């Protein structure tokens, strides 16, 4: 089992002929993801790599191929529209990799996808991977291996670091989800924790948060009251100065709120394991796997 994606995921790639889209389309196909369609307006009727049909619109792609999941690699000014296009075409799961989407665009997109009952992951995220079954996004496949740990994170390369250390220690993953570093994203920690709690194969969850906002504090509260499975947490940005955006648009301490200290306190209060360093995940998770 896994969460959000598996062998039945039928993927359409929006922006399949672009620089990033085409590179990662090949990577996903090599990994074994069922890539059933691509969308690039004006290139409908052509084929990507001689095999994947390209359509002008997501609606056409869904009608012809039955795609149920979409991944978006279009440039930031068009990303919000691409998300709404996928949702309106009946796609159930939309993953937006694009970084730099204006936050005011997201204030309009978020209620739209919610009303359509669509799950959006991202924007500004690395996507997700169910090792051995399917990968949607840009997480390198070879650092993952199947196993009992659910991984959820606001970051990209930090996730790779932790997953790589787990895999090197012989600890595999059910699904790794990068929810993205923007202030408004479609899927939050709680959505992922709830899915992992329901997933019979997931035994322990590794959660990597950052400074900024209150998502981690709310997640800790959820762990405390709604979960039976153990969760190990980490917060990046303990040395970050207040008021500065640390790369990710959402990673900013506003006034005195959103600090690493207050998030770690919430983890502690929820009885979660706390990784002080990325490498601490290995031992803390090993202990909890028994």
């Amino acid at each position, binding site marked *: 089992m896994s969460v959000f994606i598996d062998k039945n995921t039928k993927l359409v790639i929006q922006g399949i002929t672009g620089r990033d889209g085409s590179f990662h389309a090949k990577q996903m196909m090599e990994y074994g993801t069922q890539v059933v369609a691509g969308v690039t307006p004006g290139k409908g009727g052509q084929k990507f790599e001689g095999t994947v049909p390209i359509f002008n619109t997501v609606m056409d792609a869904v009608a012809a191929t039955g795609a149920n999941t979409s991944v978006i690699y279009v440039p930031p000014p068009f990303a919000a529209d691409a998300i709404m296009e996928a949702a309106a075409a009946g796609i159930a799961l939309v993953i937006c990799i694009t970084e730099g989407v204006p*936050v*005011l665009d997201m*204030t309009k997109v978020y209620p739209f996808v919610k009303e359509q009952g669509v799950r959006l992951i991202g924007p500004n995220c690395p996507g997700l991977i169910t090792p051995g079954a399917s990968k949607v996004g840009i997480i390198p496949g070879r650092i993952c291996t199947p196993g009992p740990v659910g991984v959820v994170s606001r970051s990209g*390369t*930090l996730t790779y670091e932790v997953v790589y250390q787990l895999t090197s220690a012989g600890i595999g993953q059910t699904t790794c989800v990068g929810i993205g570093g923007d202030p408004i994203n479609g899927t939050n920690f709680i959505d992922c924790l709830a899915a992992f709690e329901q997933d019979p194969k997931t035994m322990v969850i590794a959660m990597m948060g950052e*400074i900024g906002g209150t998502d981690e504090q709310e997640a800790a509260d959820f762990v405390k009251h709604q979960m039976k499975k153990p969760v190990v947490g980490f917060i990046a940005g303990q*040395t970050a100065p207040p008021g500065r955006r*640390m*790369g990710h648009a959402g990673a900013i301490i506003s006034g005195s709120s959103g600090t690493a200290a207050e998030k770690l306190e919430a983890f502690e209060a929820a009885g979660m394991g706390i990784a002080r360093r990325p490498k601490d995940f290995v031992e803390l998770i090993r202990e909890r796997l028994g």
Partner: protein
Amino acid sequence: MNLHEYQAKDILRGYGVNIPPGRIATTPSEAEAIALEYGAAVMVKAQVHVGGRGKAGGVKFCKTPADAKEKATAILGMDIKGLTVEKVLVTVAADIGSEAYVGIIVDRATKKPVFMVSAAGGIDIEQVAAETPEKILYVPVDPRYGLPSYDALRMGFFLFADVKLARGAGKIMQQLYAAFMASGCSLAEINPLVVTPTGELVAVDGKMVIDDNELDRLPAIAALRDESSEEPSEVDARNANLTFIKLDGDVGCVVNGAGLAMATMDLVKYYGGEPANFLDIGGSSNPEKVVNALRIITADANVKVILFNIFGGITRTDDVANGIVTATRANPLTVPLVIRLTGTNEELAMKILTENGFSASSDMDEAVQKAVALATGGKSA
């Protein structure tokens, strides 16, 4: 990106907000001339990107043009929290009856623009929120429909019992909302919104913070950036497409990815060191980025060691290795270099580095400990 008060006021004036006339002066004589032209008492206000200008002595009331000249002499060149005052706003002083607060932020919890209004204006809204939260009314707006008149009027009545003032305030909220959306703001506020003794509503101070992601599609707003008010190394980094934030420590950090960059800084601290910066070279493996990163970091005289932490996913580690070789050949380093890289094309990268006399580790903790030991002369770690 932060706008100066005078820039925010220019934008708000364009949306119809009633703001006293004001202009920028960079010399005391200019300040005097502007005050003379207005023929009224003026405020001389330092234009710097920090809070607490008033407390620092950067905002002064001036009765006469000569007074304005004298106060401008004192304020121009003044140092406020590490920033030098290069210009002052000279603006007609308003008679103050009462002061209110009106602001909009993009709220992460409701995922909407949210108005915050309070009759307790003139002070920091965070202080009001902490001490007397009942004095703030929060009103979320669905941006697909805009600010409905009834919500604007409801906020107006929260501030003023008088219907004329309530309607006037509601109109200002519509104007502020229009400016907020069109300028790509993550925050816009009028504080204080003043009621004069004659019952007129006047915006006496304004603030706007722009979402950096909006700047590409809003060239007129992007052009308002004032590089003279920023850390020069950060301006340099931005022009080289790097995300860089200068800190006070001595371990220079070059990392790919924001989360890993923060985690690397934290690990430096964990092992007893102090990071000199946050630097994310991003996902691209363009060797030019490495060259620029090294140039910017080595310009900081505090830096005693440079630490690379690269996890190759999209980034090819051999490209980073080539960048390191190219950069150090052109400008030999005077401080030691500690390199950690792993991931895509790791073996090739290690070969390139070894052939050029560098050593590298594939373990993050090992590399950070080594860098900290070099920076502290072996006293920590």
